[in-house]
């Protein structure tokens, strides 16, 4: 199985927010984007993607709108809200700090 279930919930949220920072996307698109950019390392299963999307939507960080997809089907497009952008910045900062700290520990050990 892809490592999606091993992803920390917060990490998945961060990945989704980051993907949506560029442009509004539908769920499948988000999963594809993350998979492509991570060179197939991160494969997001729908089982965790959609609950996360719904969670983020209820928190007000992203919003959803029905639109036309690239293959002319009705699809739900998600985009970042204002507070979503703020959240993304804060989480990125947090991530940077955390990962450099972990890197320090790993190098030092």
């Amino acid at each position, binding site marked *: 199985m892809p490592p999606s279930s091993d992803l920390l919930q917060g990490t998945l949220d961060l990945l989704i927010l980051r993907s949506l920072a560029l442009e509004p996307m*539908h*769920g*499948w698109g988000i*999963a*594809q984007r993350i998979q492509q950019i991570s060179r197939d390392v991160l494969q997001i*299963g*729908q*089982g*965790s993607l*959609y*609950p*996360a*999307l*719904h*969670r983020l939507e*209820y928190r007000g960080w992203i919003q959803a709108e*029905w639109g036309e*997809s690239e*293959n002319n*089907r*009705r*699809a*739900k497009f998600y985009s970042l809200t204002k507070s979503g952008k703020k959240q993304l910045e804060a989480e990125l900062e947090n991530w940077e700090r955390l990962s450099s700290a972990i890197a320090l520990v790993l190098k030092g050990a």
Partner: protein
Amino acid sequence: MEMFSAWKALLRRIIRRNEEVELDEELQFHLERQTQENLAQGMESEEARRQARIAFGAMGRARDECRESRPGFWVERLFQDVRYALRGFRRNPVFALTIVATLMLGIGTTTAVFSVVDRILFRSLPYEHADQLVSVGMVHSLETQGFLMGNTYYIWRDNQKPFEEITSEATGPHECDLTEGTPVQLDCEPVEGNFLSTLGITPVLGRNFLPEEARPGGPDVALISYRLWLTHYNLDPKILNKTIQIDGKPVRVIGVLPQSFEMPRLQNVDVLRAIMIDEVADHSANGGYGSPRRVFARLKPGVSLEQAWSAMEPLFHDANKQIPADIRKDIHLSVRSLRDIQTQNVRLMAWVLFGSVISVLLIACANVASLLMARGTSRQRELAVRVALGASKARLFWQTLTETMLLSIAGAVAGYLFAKGLLRLFLALAPARLSFVHKAQLDLRVIGFTLAVSMLCGIFSGLIPALQRPNAELLTGRAEKRMTHASVRQLLVAGQIAAGMILLTVAMLLVRSFRNLDHQQMGIRVDNTVTARVTLGVHKYPELAGQAHFSEAVEDQLRYGPGVSAVAVTDSLPPAPNQNGGRLNQVVVAGKPPVTAGAGEVITSRWVSPGYFPTLEIPILQGRGFSQDEVTSSERPVILNQILAERLFPGQSPLGERMRFGKLDPDSPWYTVIGIAGNVRNSGLTDKTVPEYYLLRRYGSDHWDTHGVWSRTVIFVVRSSAPIETTVQWVHSRITAVDPTLPIDIATMKERVSSLEDQPRFQTVLVSLFAITGLAMAIIGLYGLLSFLVAQREREIGVRMALGATRSNILRLVMGRSLRLIASGTLVGLALSLMVSRMLSHLLFSVGPYDPLSYSLVILLLIFVGLMATLIPARSAISVDPAVTLRSE
């Protein structure tokens, strides 16, 4: 905040109903897009769809998780569960109704009884900081309620330390007449000026007594009860400062007592009056002892009962020196909480009732749990399907619990309504003397109790079935149906039988005890006898001559009534010990050594007219009764009852002996014994027969007053062969002919005797009612379990029969299980019953707590009824057709 967003989300969902549809569409889109992608990578179309679905995972679970990620989800899920449960109940209404009815019985009876016992066992008394209130006094074997003589009281009042305030009321009874319009007899209690302030009571109208109103020569003022204000003055606010006529004298009303007010000893009160205490005069009254009173006090904060007792002990020690040496040993200091005083007689009974209904409730809950479990087992397939479809175990747990809670709530509502009806029945059954019963009501506290009980019952009975793990293997039809829950149910049924056994035993003992009470030999004839009691008011009958004249006139009138065979006048009636009385060692027999101090046995005395013995048909065993001639002579005859005669003159005839009563008073006259009367069981509810002597009540002379305090109470007793109603009317009309203003308390002797049995009758009826309810429920439980087991083993039974088992083999199989259950339940119940009945031995009359007859009857009844419950399931077991079973295999 969380709550807010939850509700917002819920609201949004209600407005946007298509959210579910949208979610499906979104997921569907994802699936299709993935399929397309797979196709583009060159997969076959079948394979592309399959791969997409594999990548997707369980669609249902993803959908559920999406829903659960919403903030308002738990509210939504609750609604869902409720809807689902209701749908289930509609599909199987008999099941739901059975459970609600069982809960209704259990919760209803418990609630009704709780509302009654609540006042006795748990509720605080209607006084401010009631836990600080105590009764202070001396107690002895004649007077267990506690009293103080005036002279001691003044010393204690002025020297005590443990109490914030101390107060007293005069010992009763204190009948008085409201002599306005139609005369009414009332209870007028004289209390000290600070009585209400000590209890912490403020009148609802007007004020408490002022100190000067409780001193001699003070103004005649009174506080009236709320009830009197309501029934007699129609809640007229102008009652304040109004002057009412009591015993023909004007008394000014200064206040109205609160509706909830009750006297510390719970006696009835219509009018509270201030005792006019003249300490100096009181010191010389009653041979220097002062007048007796009941004393109540408020503990200082932080002082315990024991500390108060120790603090009063030196004062008691001093006072004890004044008490005649021969009874000193029998007198003790008592400092008891007010609640203790109030509930001493009924507390045990209250616990019995409470215990009984709790047993009924437990049986009901066990039944509900058992029913739910049976349903859970038959629903295992459904649950297994739901698990296979992706429902989590927690989800099913909450679902099951929701169902149970819904049933409990329905049961609680039905039970509340049932309790309302039941309480009305209790009030109709309850003896008037049990004032606490009549104050019972379903108030907030009781409703809270009902809710708590039903929730507990719901959780208890819901938890066991909710914890059942659905087994997906069941779907294959291979897995054996597991029997573990059946064994829990067997345990519950055995427990029910045990609880039923306890209930039945208690009920049986009470019923037997009550029958003994009812059948006991009173020593008097109670049929065809009418009694009429009047109290001659001080105002209208100030002189002995007037009182005597009244009695004589009425007696003359009564003698010539229709069918009248005998008429008597007395100051007291069996079956109740007269309050006049003394101790055996206060009796002096001429020419004999005085009775020793140790023999402090209680004796009572009555003043009776010559007609007393023939009217009540009390046999004269030796000598003769009083004659009419003696009424006008100067002789002083006395008649002893058998017990007293045996005590004083063992083995010899007392006729002609001379004796004197009241050792303390050397001037008391000598009486001559002229006869021995049969014993009368006057102590009512106990086994004891008290030694008694009878003195002659005379007219036109003050001889009869030399012995003691002349009671203003006159009781006429008439025996007549005419119909009892006629006699009652006739007696009433004759008394009013002599004095139309007197309130008359008229009753047949039968009524008076049976009123003594009110309390035992009440508890017997109630406990029997609960026992029958409990037994019925336990039997239904047994029946349900057995039918279920038989239904479950139908296939097995069919196979056995096909293999050659006879019907009696099968019968033994089913009955054996039932008998084992009954036997184990009965054994446990027996052990517990023996313990419980030992605690109840005080309530029993002429029946031992281990009465073998009662126990055998109960056990036989249980076995009989248990076997009856077994019959139907057993019949259906032996009628299993092996051919049908084999074909279905």
